[in-house]
C-alpha cells in the first residue's frame, strides 16, 4: 500500500473525530469503539477533511510545526489509518 500525494483523504463514514475533555485527548469514535489518538495522529486526522490533498496536509503541518520533511510521518500514518478503515480517499 502506498499513498498518492494528490489523493484527498477523508474520515470514513460512521467515524467521528473529537476532543474529549475528560480524557484530555483527541479520540476517534466508531460503532462499538473508541481510539485515543496521539497528538501527531490527531493533527493529521484534523486535516483529513475531504478537501485537502495529502500534499496540502503535509505542507500545512510543516507550516504549523515550523518544520520540514514531515511527508514520511504523514504518509506512514495515513497508510495505517487506511488499513484500520478510519480514512478513505475520494
Amino acid at each position: 500500500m502506498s499513498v498518492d500525494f494528490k489523493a484527498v483523504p477523508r474520515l470514513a463514514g460512521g467515524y467521528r473525530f473529537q476532543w474529549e475533555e475528560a480524557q484530555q485527548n483527541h479520540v476517534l469514535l466508531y460503532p462499538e469503539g473508541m481510539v485515543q489518538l496521539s497528538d501527531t495522529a490527531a493533527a493529521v486526522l484534523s486535516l483529513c477533511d475531504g478537501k485537502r490533498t495529502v500534499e496540502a496536509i503535509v505542507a500545512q503541518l510543516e507550516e504549523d510545526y515550523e518544520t520540514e520533511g514531515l511527508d514520511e510521518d504523514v504518509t506512514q500514518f495515513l497508510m495505517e489509518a487506511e488499513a484500520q478503515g478510519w480514512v478513505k480517499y475520494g
Partner: protein
Amino acid sequence: MAKIPPPLWLLAEVTHSCPLQCPYCSNPLQLVPKKDELDTEGWLKVLHQARKMGAAQLGFSGGEPLVRKDLEVLIAEARKLGYYSNLITSGVGMDAARVEKFRELGLDHIQVSFQADDATLNDYLAGTHAFQHKLDMARAVKASGYPMVLCFVIHRQNTDRVAQMLDLAAELQADYVELATTQFEGWALANRDHLLPTLEQVREAERVAHHYQEKLKGKMKIYYVVPDYYENRPKACVAGWGKVFLAVAPDGLVLPCHSARSLPNLELHNVRDHDLAWIWYESKAFNYFRGEDWMKEPCRTCDEREKDFGGCHCQAFKLTGDPTNADPTCAKSPHHHLIEQAIDTTRLNPNSSKPLLFRKRQNNSNLS
C-alpha cells in the same frame, strides 16, 4: 487502590417493553413495569451527568427503545452533548421516515438485530412476524447513509446457519456484523437447555466465521466470539467492574453490568436519589468488585486475574451461589463441573423436554 477511571460507555436501557419475545433475552425475569420508567427529564439528567464524567459512547437499548415516544428528544440531546450514540433495536417500531429523522437529529448508528436469516426461524424465535420488516429497516438504515450494523444472536437453534446469516448480511451490504453468542443471563439462563450450542456447533460456527472474515476483508467487519462455556477461561465482563461501563435500567437503577440487579447484597442506587458521579466513584456497589481484595482462590493468585478480573460475577452467583467465586466457565474453578454438566446435557439431550419460555411479562410468574 489505583485511581478510579471515568466511565466511557453508557448503556441507557430506556424501557423493558418489547414487541418481541425472544427466549434468549438477557433482561431480568422481573421486567421493570412501564409505570416505573424514568421520564424524559430523568433520562436527560442521566445523559448530562454521564457525559460530564466522560462517557463518550452511548447505547440506547432496552427492551425495545423505539417504544419510547421521547426517543427523538433523547437522541437530539445526546448529539448536542457530544455522545457517539447507537440505537440497539429490533427495528420494530421504526419506518424509513423515523430513520431519516434520527439521522437529522444526529444519531450516529443503528444496530438492527436479527433472530435468524430466514423468516420462519426468525419469527418463531421473535414470537412475532418481524423478519420482512427487519429486512426493510436494514435497507432503510443503509439508504439513509448510516453504516449498517447487524447483530445476530446465536444459540443452538440457529448456530448451524451462520453461513446463511453472513450471506444475508453481505447481500444487505452490512458494514459490521456481530455474531453475538447468547449470554446465559435472565431469560436465556431459564432457557439454557434449549439454547446452549454443542461443541461441534461452536467449532463449525467459528470456522465459518473465520472463512467469511477472510473472504469479506475490507468490505464487512465480522465479530465472532466463542461462547465462554467453551473457552475454559471466563470473559472480562464489561471490561472490568466499574472500569469503563455503566448501565442505567428503565427505572433509573444504576448498574455496573446490565445483569447486576440479580446479585445479592449489592446495594444498588437510583439516579432519582443520587448523582451518577457519586454512584460511580463512591457507592459500595461500584466498588464491590473493583481491585482484587474481593477475590478468593483460584483468582487471588491467578496469573490471568488482570486479564479477566475473575469473569462474570452474575454467572458465578447464578451457578455457584456466591458472586465472589471464580466464574465457573474457568477451567481452574472448583465449580467448573457445573459447566461441563450443562455441556453434557446439551450433547446428550439436544431436544429438551422443558417448554421454551418466551419473554413476556405474564411468563414471569411461571418461574420461581
